[in-house]
């Protein structure tokens, strides 16, 4: 067996030019796979952290059954009441895999400066939990651009007003609030109080008060005031026109409820997600609670994450298919030529007793060694390119995300090993099958170099 490996190695050394050409082909294919994989891993990490932390999905969300779809239209019926919250917290607090849990309330309404109004979609969140989210290592590492407020301070920060709210700059533009208040609020008196009066409209822009109007969950009309202290970004283009975040108790007051829309559960180790979700479903099911346990990658929770990743997977699938196709044909070509050139030698091997399979396995070994060397060189090349690209600090934009982000490639060892395995298996298998087929002629034909 060992001699066959030695024989294969010698054959490769006999045609250095061809071996180098084959290695180069495989190196490019391999590097392409690893770099594309590195890009997908980077985007997956970015979108996951954005969805889980910044958009408050948690690693897992616990909703009333159908609450994710109907929570906005019929919030009272599809929210978690105080009693259910207590029971859920009992289960979550007993699980050591949970890092922390945050109650979340989602609601809609109109934000207004008194004259001009625009729809908002609010997230009521516990200030302590929000502070924890914004200082989580994953967030600081992956989303340093997004975690910082665009201006002002967050309601989770020390010294914030109890009714402090944060809105996106786009929503601010629609209700003519362009700068947050860092100073104590001084009401602006204006003699006009007329929405058609330009001076009065301008004076409203300086006021930090944002009027919030909504339907309370008991069906009554409700209104409240928030003090605008910060401007944030959601990181998602489509939600930039409407997003408002505020302390949970302020939102509960606005909607006249002690209920919440869902619990966002943050795990110590996100790799536990699948098992945790299954266990949680079982435990909550035992309490006879009518709940949905939804991971962050459910399209009802994070459609953008799912859509963007699907698109990348399609691209990757397409690329793998094309690269594997071209690499396969390249191997077939090289092999075809090698068999033709070496048919007398191969005929001799067959004549002295080597079986068709054994001779074909020599070619498979040659392909395996070529792929191994290619994977090694390709891995070095890929990690070097990734390092250079990351150091260059290139900025780029992604459709659906607001602002830009750094173009990074984050290949890892697992990816490199997976690509190596794919390449080695593909090259060896194709070589074996093609060689086996080509060697299926009479030994005399091979010895005399007769072409089929």
């Amino acid at each position, binding site marked *: 067996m060992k001699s066959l490996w030695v024989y294969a190695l010698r054959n490769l050394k006999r045609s250095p030019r061809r071996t180098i050409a084959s290695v180069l082909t495989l190196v490019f294919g391999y590097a*392409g796979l690893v770099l594309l994989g590195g890009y997908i891993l980077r985007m997956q990490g970015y979108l996951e952290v954005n969805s889980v932390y910044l958009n408050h999905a948690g690693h897992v969300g616990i909703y009333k059954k159908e609450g994710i779809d109907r929570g906005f239209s019929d919030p009272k019926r599809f929210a978690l009441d105080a009693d259910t919250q207590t029971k859920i917290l009992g289960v979550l607090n007993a699980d050591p895999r949970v890092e922390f849990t945050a109650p979340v309330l989602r609601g*809609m309404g109109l934000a207004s400066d*008194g004259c*001009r*109004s625009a729809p908002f979609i609010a997230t009521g969140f516990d200030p302590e939990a929000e502070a924890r989210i914004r200082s989580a290592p994953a967030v600081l590492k992956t989303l340093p651009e997004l975690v910082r407020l665009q201006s002002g301070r967050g309601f989770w920060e020390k010294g914030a007003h109890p009714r402090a709210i944060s809105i996106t700059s786009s929503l601010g533009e*629609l209700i003519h609030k362009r700068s947050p208040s860092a100073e104590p609020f001084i009401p602006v008196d204006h003699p006009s109080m007329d929405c058609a009066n330009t001076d009065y409209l301008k004076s409203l822009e300086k006021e930090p008060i944002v009027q919030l109007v909504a339907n309370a969950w008991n069906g009554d009309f409700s209104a409240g005031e928030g003090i605008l202290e910060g401007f944030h970004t959601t990181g998602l283009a489509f939600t930039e026109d409407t997003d408002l975040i505020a302390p949970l108790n302020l939102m509960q007051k606005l909607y006249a409820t002690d209920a919440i829309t869902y619990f966002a559960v943050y795990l110590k180790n996100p790799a536990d997600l699948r098992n945790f979700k299954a266990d949680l479903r079982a435990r909550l099911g035992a309490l006879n609670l009518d709940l949905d346990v939804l991971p962050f990658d459910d399209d009802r929770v994070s459609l*953008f994450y799912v859509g963007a990743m699907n698109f990348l997977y399609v691209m990757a699938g397409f690329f793998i298919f094309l690269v594997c196709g071209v690499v396969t044909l390249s191997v077939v070509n090289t092999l075809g030529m090698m068999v033709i050139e070496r048919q007398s030698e191969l005929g001799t091997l067959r004549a002295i007793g080597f079986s068709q399979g054994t001779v074909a396995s020599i070619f498979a070994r040659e392909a395996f060694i070529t792929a191994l060397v290619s994977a090694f060189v390709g891995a070095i090349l890929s990690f070097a390119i990734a390092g250079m690209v990351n150091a260059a600090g290139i900025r780029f934009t992604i459709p659906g995300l607001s602002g830009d982000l750094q173009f990074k490639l984050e290949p890892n060892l697992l990816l490199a090993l997976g690509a190596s395995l794919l390449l080695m298996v593909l090259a060896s298998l194709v070589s074996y099958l093609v060689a086996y087929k080509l060697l299926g002629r009479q030994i005399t034909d091979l010895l005399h170099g007769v072409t089929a």
Partner: protein
Amino acid sequence: MTLFYTLLRIAARNSVLNWRHGLAALLSIAAGFAAIVFFQGYIVDVTRMYDDTFTRRGMFGHVIVEREGARGRGFALGPDYDLKSDDQQIIDKLLAENSQVVNRTRFLNLSGTISQGATQVIFAGYGYDVLEGAATRGKSWAFNTVAGKPLDQAMKDGGEPMILGLGLARALGCTPDQKMRLLTGTGGYSHEFRPFTCVNTSLMISATTLDGRANAIYPTLVGLTDAAFKAIDDRFVALPIELAQSLLQTKGVTYYSVELRDPALASEFSRNLKAAAAASGIHLDATPWKEHRFGELYVKTMDFLSIFRAFILSVIVVIVILSVVNTMTKLVLERTREAAVLRCLGYSSAHVIALFSLEGTILGVTGSLAGALIAQILIPAINLLEIPYRAGVLSGAIPFRIAVVPELFLGTGFFLGAIAILSAVIPAIRVANAPLPKSLESHG
């Protein structure tokens, strides 16, 4: 000329005689050809789909005309940012005088709350010129509702019609009766009425008027549409412009979309219109939608696809070049003795190089034709499957398709043909100029 034909005949015969070796090169070229046209065809299809989504489905036409600085938001930015009746008269006159204009549609943006019984949710949408909008949508998107009727058809029945995005409709308890595969594969939906059911058909739309007062209307829901992007679809409302104006108590509009005869003239048209409007006393922004805030997603998507295209194609092209060069080089070098014999018979080095170039050309052309044949068989088969997948921010799954672009086939054929010729010429120069005695002793 006679010499050329002689060399061509020899090259053709050599290609047949060395078919086994030639087959390897041919396969490389065919595979490379198919890989390139497959991937480029996919990108072209996605680009066309996005272009169609904005130009036709979204009724943006080619140019957006609005008050200077409005950026698609109109009076949401302030009382001076919409286009008032007088402005509209001037714009309509300017557009009517311009032979490039095929059609124009006025839009009035609106947002507020929509209620059904105890359920109240926010909405954002627009009122538009229903008939003109239908004309801009064209045949493929004429029927733009997933269930119910498009606004232009419902207008014939009278009343105050309204259509809702599917996401918003679901929140209000309205769903299509049938679940079906809706996209036709070439653009819009099949032109047939599909019923839908609502828990409660009485809907009220409330919004704040320009002077800060609340107002409400009670339109009739006639259809459900897919607003293409999930975040928009969950809040989307479309009304006839007259109804939207009565809700907001205004005669103003937010913007015009203008459809041109020649989309390539969009930038020039925009500049001229802006200048003509300024001369008439109004300050407008006229912008091709691809350069407008509305087209931001399109531009970002195209940029994103360009990065992918550059990356993936460069890898595929390098692999293909290496594979073809490797095979062709081998093919030429192993025939060193044959080249030397030709030179002994009186052929010059240039003839030998020309001979191998012709062989390269034959392989390049045959390989490209084989690749084109593979693509012509596989692409329609793949497209026929209409494999659905979710992509980015789109609200629904889209079918995986690959476009067949003749220019792409030709370009790829020329490119690979050139690679094949170059791959043959470079080693051929070496072979043709090698010392004759040494070449005659060569074993390939």
